């Protein structure tokens, strides 16, 4: 089902997900931000302005630590948007990451780029660390780049998250959402 993106974003912001905003205040602020954006569109630049989400809503990043040496990163990709598989980069510090386990994408034919792999919907990527670092705080850097089907692309978006790695045999950590929005303010 195709959803109206701005409404979908509003719903996404207010819904009780397993990764809710920490407080009502933050949720209210997010609602406010969404309303201001909706207003900006309504006022908009003349004619044929597509209704579009800001990149942090079109491609919502979150991550959790599964065990002392594994991070699970997720992108919730809004309907009508996609991410390029070959533009995804995951690195960690201070402990280094190994090769991320990227699921196969869907082939998309592009007049200039040829066949490229893209992701839609939910993307789950396992990022293994090169060593177990129980109890340590790890910074995950996730670079991504995507587009909307209406015919616009967002620039490469570097984001980072900080995760506390669980103890061996301990429970996976909670999902963390992006803390720093790259250069989209």
């Amino acid at each position: 089902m195709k959803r109206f993106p701005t409404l979908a974003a509003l719903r996404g912001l207010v819904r009780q997900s397993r990764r809710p905003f920490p407080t009502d205040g933050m949720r209210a602020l997010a609602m406010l931000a969404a309303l201001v954006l909706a207003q900006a569109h309504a006022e908009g630049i003349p004619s044929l302005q597509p209704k579009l989400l800001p990149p942090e809503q079109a491609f919502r990043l979150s991550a959790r630590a599964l065990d002392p040496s594994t991070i699970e990163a997720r992108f919730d990709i809004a309907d009508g948007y996609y991410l390029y598989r070959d533009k995804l980069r995951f690195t960690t510090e201070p402990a280094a990451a190994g090769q991320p386990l990227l699921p196969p994408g869907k082939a998309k034919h592009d007049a200039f780029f040829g066949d490229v792999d893209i992701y839609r919907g939910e993307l789950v990527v396992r990022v293994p660390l090169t060593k177990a670092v129980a109890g340590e705080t790890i910074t995950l850097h996730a670079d991504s780049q995507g587009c909307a089907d209406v015919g616009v692309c967002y620039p490469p978006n570097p984001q980072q998250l900080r995760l506390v790695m669980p103890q061996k045999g301990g429970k996976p950590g909670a999902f963390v959402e992006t803390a720093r929005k790259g250069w989209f303010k």
Partner: protein
Amino acid sequence: MSSTGRSRRTLIVAGVAALALALGTATALLHSDRSAARDGSAVLGIVLPDAQGHEQALTQWRGKVLVVNFWATWCAPCREEMPQFVAAQARDGARGVQFVGIAVDDPVKVRAFAAEIGLNYPALIGGYGAIELSKTLGNDLSALPFTIVLDRQGRVAHAQLGPLKAAQLNDLLSSLLQTS
């Protein structure tokens, strides 16, 4: 109602009022930004190097119908729309239309793509800083392609996120060439 309940309600009312005020202020700011953006002097004030490294000031095209297109080689819809800009530049250039591309990209990739499509108008190199520049001109979502069209008087006649359709572009150019 208990005093705790009442103070909580007061807090909620205050919170809603604060939000409304913030929303109003934000909207007012957006309005002022927009009216400022209708004056194209911010566009004409742009100075950037071209793909050969020579500084180019957009003021040199003052008096033309100026189409400023923010694009990148990594942006498929941008690449798809540019051949029609090449065609329009060839057709309407002598009548006073000037296209200028501002690439959110590096010069090597820009030169390669320019050669590939036979680019016949300047491709200025903005790097990622050009995204911030486009934001100050109304590209709130920092996405590409983003195009601003100035009339001969230097006013913003059209600004658009997303590709321009060929018919829309042609209508716009002919009306701006006729009226100015």
